[in-house]
């Protein structure tokens, strides 16, 4: 074997691997949160909500607005942790409500139409939101002033890699949200109703479940998670703009399909795998591949295992 020739890149690979994993997990946390909303909505409605990426974008802007409101020139008005929590909460609430509005106006009237109709409606909503943001906020990039809340140097040196405070915040927040979601779905009455509707809408109605209300809650929760993902993206990557939802939506969708669309743990797993794959491609091959990875993963999954990693053979949904 030509050990000497491969020796050097191999050393670099091993030396940078831990850091790449941390970066990949950060990105993956964001993708996972977006994928959850895709998968939940697909689970209850068999609908691909292509406006989901734009809800995420709106969340990033809401977080930006809250941040700016609480950090005047004179410096932050409250403790950073309070401002971050406010950013997350307001964005989640705002996006949750936006999700409900989208469902009411764009999807509910088409509930019994051929499946292509809500798909077209979804694209329409996506364009509408993008253009509405561009018109009101212009097409400029905005930058989160994360450094005013979290010192760039803050973090933990793990020896083999550095875990910055911002990345730790993103990963921990995403995991906490996922645990809360998992509890909600597995243990609460609403969660049980959501699963029942996903499995068999009519049978759930026969048990007295108010299906419309369950669908509204599903959109609220899925969209709120996208809003949180938007804020976390802003905090860690800082740059936000009106078109950021397009690529993110595509990746959330890919992650959802990779995990098995409609499957909640699958969406989480798919998000992290995609985040890692994309980070490795950029870190070890070339940054030009950043957005190609998702397409390649999507095509491979659709060819080899269309039901995804954790998807049931017969789509079992949530």
């Amino acid at each position, binding site marked *: 074997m030509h050990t000497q020739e491969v020796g050097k890149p191999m050393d670099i690979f091993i030396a940078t691997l831990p850091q790449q994993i941390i970066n990949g997990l950060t990105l993956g946390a964001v993708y996972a949160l977006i994928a959850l909303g895709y998968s939940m909505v697909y689970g209850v409605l068999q609908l691909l909500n292509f406006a989901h990426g734009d809800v995420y974008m709106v969340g990033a802007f809401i977080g930006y607005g809250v941040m700016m409101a609480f950090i005047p020139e004179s410096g932050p008005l409250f403790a950073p942790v309070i401002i971050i929590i406010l950013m997350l909460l307001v964005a989640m609430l705002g996006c949750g409500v936006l999700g409900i509005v989208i469902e009411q106006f764009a999807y509910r009237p088409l509930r019994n139409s051929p499946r292509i109709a809500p798909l077209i409606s979804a694209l329409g909503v996506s364009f509408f939101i993008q253009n509405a943001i561009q018109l009101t906020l212009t097409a400029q990039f905005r930058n989160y002033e994360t450094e005013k809340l979290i010192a760039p140097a803050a973090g933990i040196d793990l020896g083999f890699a550095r875990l910055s405070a911002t990345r730790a915040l993103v990963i921990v927040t995403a995991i906490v949200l996922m645990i809360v979601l998992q509890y909600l779905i597995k243990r609460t*009455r609403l969660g*049980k*109703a959501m*699963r*029942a509707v996903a*499995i*068999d809408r*009519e*049978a*759930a*109605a*026969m*048990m*007295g*479940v*108010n299906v419309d209300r369950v669908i509204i809650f599903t959109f609220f929760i899925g969209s709120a998670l996208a809003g949180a993902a938007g804020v976390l993206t802003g905090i860690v990557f800082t740059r936000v703009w009106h078109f950021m939802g397009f690529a993110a939506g595509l990746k959330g969708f890919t992650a959802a399909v990779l995990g098995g669309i409609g499957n909640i743990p699958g969406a989480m797993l798919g998000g992290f795998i995609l985040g890692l794959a994309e980070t490795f491609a950029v870190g070890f091959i070339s940054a030009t591949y950043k957005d190609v990875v998702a397409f390649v993963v999507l095509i491979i999954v659709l060819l080899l295992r269309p039901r995804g990693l954790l998807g*049931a053979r017969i789509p*079992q*949904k949530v």
Partner: protein
Amino acid sequence: MSNNGTKTTLLRLEDINTYYGPIHILQGVSLEVFAGELVCLLGGNASGKSTTLKTILGIVKPASGRVVFNGEAIQNQPTGYRVERGMAVVPENRRIFGSMSVLENLEMGAFLRHDRDGIKADFERILGLFPRLKERLHQLGGTLSGGEQQMLAMGRALMSRPKLLLMDEPSMGLAPKLVEQNFELIQQVNQQGTTVFMVEQNANMALSIAHRGYVVQTGRIVLADEAKNLLDNEQLRKAYLGR
């Protein structure tokens, strides 16, 4: 609540017309079920039996006519309202929630109840009725055998402690021995005070436990009588009883 002699009407359909799109399915269906009765609705494939049950439950809404339950016109109320007031269904093909456990399926039956103690008591009673389910509480509903799924569908419906139990072809897909057990159980549930309205194609079996029966043909009620008279009815015998 209307009285007919000593009997109390629990459910009454008055001149029901139900459509799927432009197709007129139920064409002026009227029928009545008294409290405590076991009534069956017989009819061939696509005659409108399931549609009748779905109209009673509010899964489909009639274009005209009234559904009166316990003295109240409910044809415009959502399904949840009707379930809260005492309807429960064992649907056609059972419709078990396949990726939920047996326990969760039973809990879904009590979805609209909030009386914890009452739910607990009914849960124990139902497990007593179906010991097979008790052994399998944490198994996924979809992995149960057909017979076990029938028990689960029945248990799930009883978890709401219904006044009126609606059943859509409980004998479907079961071996003859299981059908017999199942009908004995339905009769037992009825004798303990639950009114039962049952859709069946297996007319012999259904009439052997029912008090009265209706026969539906392409969306119209063509016969209504005491079960024992229907068993002897020449017309019905030729059409459904195969004797």
